[in-house]
Structures are given as C-alpha cells and as structure tokens.
C-alpha cells in the first residue's frame, strides 16, 4: 500500500464546513500529485474553500473557471503546455469539479475533453448535491434523498430519479482509466491517483466526499460515512482500465444499507419499504459490477 506523502500543498485557513469530505479529497489529491500540478476549479464549494482574495491556501497554480467549463479549461491549459513543449508527465493538469460541475452542467465540456484524449485528470468530488448553493438536488443525488429542491412535503417527496453513473459514462468514451475512491482510504487514494498520473490520456477520478451540512450528518461521522458507503456497497471502490473492471477494495463483510442511511438526516423520512428498495438496488448494482469484473477480465 502506498505511503501518504509528507508534502502539504493545502494549508490551514480553509473556509470549508466542519467535517467537509471535499477538504480531505483535495488534500490527498495534492499529496499524491505533488507540486508540479496545475489545478482548475469551476463554481463549486472548492471555489470558496481555498480562501477569498487575496488569501489562498493551495500552494499550486490555481485557475478558476466558469461552472460548465472545467473540461475545456483543462484542455486549454494542456494545449498551452503542449505549445510550450511541456510533457504531460512533467506537469499534471487537473480539473477538480463537484458533482454538478461534472455530471450536470459540466458534462458537455468533460465529454469533449475526454473524447479529444486530453492528457488530464478530471476529478469529480461527489457530495451528491449542489452544496455550495445550499443543498439543491443534482444528477448525482441518490434516490430517496431530501434536498432543498426535493423537499419532503405532502405533495412532493424525496428525489425519485437514480444517481447518474459517471463511471459508465466515462467508460463509454473509451477512457483509458476511470476510478472511484473514498476519503476513508487515504493510502488507496494516493495509490490510485499516482497510478492515474502515470497513464497518458484522459483520466476520470470519482471521489466520494460526504457533506455533513447537506447530508444532515454529524461532522465527526464524515470518514465513518465514507467507509460505510464502501462497506455497504453503496459506493464500491473500483477502477476501469481500458474497459477492464477491477474492484480494488471489497468489503470484508457487507453491511446493511440502513446502517449507512440512518446516520444521515437526508434519508430520515424514508419508510421501511423504501429502505428495502434501496437495499435491493444496491445489491443489484453490486452484483452487476462483479459480473462486469468477471466478464472483462476473462
């Protein structure tokens, strides 16, 4: 297992909420990539977390861009570096966007960036809603969740649509490498990010980043929630390398989904049968994933 590098490129003084999973995501990402990294960030929590002008707590060149533009901005930075003769292995270009900026408004630019084969790591730190604007539902909000735009009232209940599967969308682009990771496993994060760094072409990294503010969970439960998401198979840790699936961290013992749901206020309203429905769906998706692993490895 990879060691967590000593280097700190994210300093104190962030404006993140207590227990912010996205904070850990950035810290480990930068530890894995080191200082030869250019990062671009659209509108999202991380547009604010590094501090407001003139403060900045990230010790790497940082470019903010428009909400829907991350894939295009990565392409622009990479193209400029290419024009200057800088090899992709010399400087890593990272697009670091939330779930909305990746899977909703940013999906077109991301698709273009990946389709063009841009040498870049495109990160989706996934807190499963538009958290910076105040917990509105996104395409990555899971079935059953409360958000401010899927309020639970007499006429409207929770989010009814399923979570958008970005790993499959990326895989459908023929991307060389796509990987999910969890802030509950920093060493595995470091290992997989460093693996992504060494692969030429576009890479997609899906980081599961619990948000106590939006999930109505205890800030001290953030890492526990991230671990439970893996142990319940709600968020399996796997990678797709040139179409070949590999689950790199299987739960020792599969934990019931209700253990994960019950410590989050955003699922509080769900009746028993809905919890069962979610459990069934998680089981089905997990089985499907294992079959994909088996099928693609053979």
């Amino acid at each position, binding site marked *: 297992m990879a060691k967590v590098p000593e280097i700190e490129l994210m300093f104190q003084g962030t404006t993140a909420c207590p227990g912010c999973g996205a904070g850990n995501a950035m810290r480990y990402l930068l530890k894995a990539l080191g*200082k*030869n*990294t*250019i990062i*671009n960030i659209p509108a999202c929590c991380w*547009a*604010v977390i*590094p*501090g*407001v*002008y*003139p403060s*900045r707590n*990230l*010790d*790497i*060149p*940082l*470019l*903010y*861009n*428009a909400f*829907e*533009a991350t*894939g*295009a*901005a*990565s*392409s*622009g*930075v990479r*193209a*400029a*570096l*290419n*024009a*200057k003769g800088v090899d992709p292995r010399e*400087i890593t270009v990272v697009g670091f966007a939330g779930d909305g900026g990746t899977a909703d408004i940013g999906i*077109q*630019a991301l*698709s*273009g960036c990946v*389709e*063009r084969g841009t040498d870049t790591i495109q990160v989706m730190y996934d807190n499963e809603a538009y958290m910076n604007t105040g917990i509105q539902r996104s395409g990555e909000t899971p079935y059953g969740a409360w958000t401010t735009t899927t309020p639970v009232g007499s006429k409207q209940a929770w989010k009814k649509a399923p979570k958008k599967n970005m790993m499959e969308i990326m895989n459908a682009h023929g991307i060389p490498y796509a990987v999910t990771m969890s802030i509950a496993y920093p060493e595995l994060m470091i290992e997989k990010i460093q693996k992504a760094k060494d692969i030429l072409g576009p890479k997609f990294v899906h980081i599961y980043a619990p948000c106590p503010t939006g999930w109505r969970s205890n800030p001290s439960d953030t890492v526990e929630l991230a671990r439970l998401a893996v142990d319940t198979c709600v968020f399996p840790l796997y990678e797709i390398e040139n179409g070949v699936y590999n689950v790199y961290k299987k739960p020792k013992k599969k934990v019931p989904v209700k253990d994960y749901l019950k410590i989050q206020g955003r699922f509080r309203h769900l009746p028993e049968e809905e919890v069962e429905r979610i459990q069934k769906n998680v089981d089905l998706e997990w089985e499907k994933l294992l079959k994909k692993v088996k099928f693609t490895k053979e």
Partner: protein
Amino acid sequence: MSEMKIVSGNFAAAYGAKLSRVEVVAAYPITPQTEVVEKIAQLVSEGEMDAEYVMVESEHSAMAACIAASNTGARAYTASSAHGLALMHELLIWASGARLPVVMTNINRAMGPPWSVWADHHDTLAQKGTGQMQFFCENNQEVLDSVIMAYKIGEDAEIMLPSMVVEDAFILSHTKEPVEIYDQELVDEFLPSYDPEYKLDVERPFGFGSLGMPDWYMDFRYKIAEAFEKAPDKIEKVNKEFSEIFGNDNGGLIEEYKTDGVDVLIVTMGSISSTSKDVIDELRAEGHNIGLARLRTFRPFPVEKFRKITKGVNVVGVMDRSYTFGHGGDAAREIKDALYGHRDLILKDYIVGLGGRDMTPKILKNIMLDAISLQDKGLDNEIEWVDLRINQERWRR
C-alpha cells in the same frame, strides 16, 4: 517576402492568426465562420502553422479553452459567429475580467429566429458590454491586419484586454479580395511573443479568479475601466506604427473619408462603408458637402474623436446594421451619447441591411440625400427603418 493572395475574409482571418504566431487555437464550426477553422486546421496539418488546435465541442468551450491557454501564457485565438458568439457570452466577460488578451474573429451574422446566416451586427453589438475591444472591418486586408494589431494592443501591459475583430457575413467572409500576406519576420518584429507577467506556473504558483469580496471587486472593475480609458490612444498609436511598417492605414478608431469641413457626416460600420464611399464621391461631385466617418472601433467607443470630427457639422446620418429593441440602433445611440452637451446638430438613425438585406448604391444614395435634406426641413424621424417591404418604393426609386 510579403505575398499578394486572393483570399476570402475568412482566410484573411486565418492568415492573420498564423502571422500572429498564435500558440493555441480552440474553435467550433458555425456558418459562415467554418472556413476560418478549416483553413487553420489545414495550415496546422501541413506544418505551415505551429499551433495547438483544440477541436472543442462548443463555442463556450472554445473561449473557455482560450482563456485557460492564455492564463497559462500562450497566445490564444478563436473564431465564431452569431449564435456561437451568444453562447460564449459568459466567457467573453470572463476573458476581460481575467485580463486575458485573447483575440477572436467574429463573422457578423444575424441572430435567429427566424434563422438567418447573413450579415447583421446584432451579434457583436449584443456583446458590447462584455469588456471586449471591438474592431469592425471594411475589407479582407483589414481583417488580417486587425488580428495582428489586436494582439499588439491587447497584450500591452497597460491594456491586457481581449478583442473581437469582426467582419460581415458573406460580404467579406466569403468574398475574395487581394490581400497582402506580410513577411513573417516583419510581423515578428512588430508583434513580439506573448510573455505575461502573471501566468499559471508551478515554479511561481498564483491563483487566478478567486472570490472577490465587495471590498475588492469594485476596484478590479475600475482597473478594467482604466484600461479602456487608455485603449483609444493605444489603438491610434498601434495603427500608426502598423501603417508605417506595413503600408496599410486602417483608420484606428474612426476612418475619416473626406470629412474636412463637411455639413453632413455619414457614419457607417463594416462592409457597407466601401459602397458608401463611392456614393459620397458621387454626391460630392454633384456639389453636396458630405463626408463619411467609418466607425471602426466600437469598444472602446471613440467619444473624443466623435466630438472632434463633428465640429461644424449640421447633420449626422448614422447607418446601423442592428437594432436594440426598445432603444434603437447602437451606433446612433452611442454617438448621441458622446455628443450630448458638446454639439448642437441633427442626428438621424437609419436602420439598414438587417439579416443581409442588400444595401445598393441607390439605397445608400437615397439615405444620404435624406440626411442632406434634413438641413432645411429639420429632423423628421429620429429612427428610420430603410428598405422595408412596406417602404421599398421610396428607398429604391
């Protein structure tokens, strides 16, 4: 050695980008701009042009990629038109806010609906508040020249602003004219490589575009305003320098055509100007004291220059190839704004040629005669829509 080629306005734009040694091109196709990106793709593929060409999936991404490239220290270029430009809107503002001298060519095309691919200035003028400098070209040589000059002006440390070099759909974009393709060494001397003081650099990490609280934001906006204050002088200076080196004077802020001591001044923009100049000659030969000012630079708007050239003028007739609903033609409104409290004259706004409606010498002459007639009869209508289906008889007779 410089070389004369017979090229379209679109090819002229591509050659302008080539001669400017742009390092990153990001563009998306739209009629009637496609030849620009096709030509650049060809020049790159044949090794005649050393640029990274990012074939983006939208105009929004085109400008986003150019912004990011420029922020990384590369000279960036794009081209678009009408709906593509409108899609870029957010990033046109971003480019100026980030103080990045990206240059784009926009082919002036009408906005739908109804769908139209023909000449109209609405697309560009709808972006007049985005912090882009805007240069309206009269011919294909000027298209090429203006791309090179736009980098020179925009990259000046005191300016640091993006530019739009614009040309009329089909009338320039698809019409071939002789264009001088300058000697590369001469252009290199005029336009040194882009080397911004601040850029994305792992050895000297800065953050660009972070949240500006109310105690900072306004001051950043003021800095952009200051740059726009300085831009008119810079534009005139660069135009002079360019004309001395390359022999083509494109007029800087306003090209004056026989304006000395005239009673009636006609204002035009873009390709309509060439035909209008012929009509001016005709009317002058008939004894009318009339001249033409070609408004070349719309942003920054040449306020001082308009005050200067309207001294002693009785009537200003403005031809607007666009209309801002609820207000009028942009050029006429802004000229009025510039002259308020400085000149006591008649100003009439002629709305002409929208969606590519042909502006013939006959129609132009009738407009100018109408302007001349205002000296005696006074202002009839502040705004006149010319050559509508309901009034064609009057303007075409």
